[in-house]
């Protein structure tokens, strides 16, 4: 297995682990529902919003890579790939693998950004419900 894929999978693993532990922490805060929870959630929301803003240009670049890959994929039909394999056309097969790796990296960037967006939406929903409940009690 190529070194690039090893590094790439390690990057994915780290990102997914961070996202996973962040979501677990968020869930615990929501379920605990303590008096401090709203303030904690607001602080968490501000950090997530900063992260989303900082990642915006990266996500735009990733979306462009995904569009490029869709065009490349149209060109590389199953028949073409079978032909490259039969002729041991290593250059084309490596080009295809490079493209697939760029697409995978871009997909992960988009997925990680989607997790941040989901986290933001969940926090905003939770805070809005707290406000609605408070308005009802007045």
């Amino acid at each position, binding site marked *: 297995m190529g070194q690039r894929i090893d590094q790439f999978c390690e990057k994915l693993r780290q990102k*997914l682990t961070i996202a996973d532990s962040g979501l677990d922490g968020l869930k615990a805060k929501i379920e605990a529902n303590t008096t401090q929870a709203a303030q904690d959630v607001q602080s968490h929301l501000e950090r997530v919003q900063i992260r989303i803003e900082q990642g915006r240009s990266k996500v735009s670049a990733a979306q462009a890579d995904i569009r490029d890959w869709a065009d490349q994929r149209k060109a590389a039909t199953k028949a073409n790939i079978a032909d490259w394999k039969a002729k041991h056309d290593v250059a084309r097969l490596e080009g295809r693998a490079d493209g697939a790796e760029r697409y995978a990296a871009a997909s992960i960037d988009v997925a990680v950004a989607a997790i941040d967006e989901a986290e933001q939406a969940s926090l905003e929903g939770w805070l809005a419900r707290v406000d609605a409940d408070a308005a009802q009690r007045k």
Partner: protein
Amino acid sequence: MTKPLSQQLADLSGRAKHAEDAFGAAQKEAHDKIETRKQQARAAATTAVEKVNQEVKSAGDNAARDWSTVKAKIAADMNALKANVAEAKHKHDVKHAESHADRLEWEAGFAIDYAIASIEQASLAVLNAIDGRAQAEQAKQR
């Protein structure tokens, strides 16, 4: 929304863990096993994307229904305003806060489903990349 947000977040967290495990295993597996994983990832991605699409469609329906409800409630609120302006103002604020929270909770549920669909698609992309590199390496060794 069928599940509470905390449960949906747990689902999202579980998908992230599942994807992480699949990537780790795929690096050590033979081509036929990677192919099976790709098929599973493709099916999961398709299901997740179809769910998001369905939610987009049902959002349109809900918006139409909500609009009729809002119109009916505005009429009711107008009568309440005539009877007691202060009381009607309070009800309106509460109603507004509740509908705002309902909307944001729905959006959060949608954002979580979208993130799950993105993870499933990324899983498939990674498995494709692993498979593509393995095929290139095989061709090089022949």
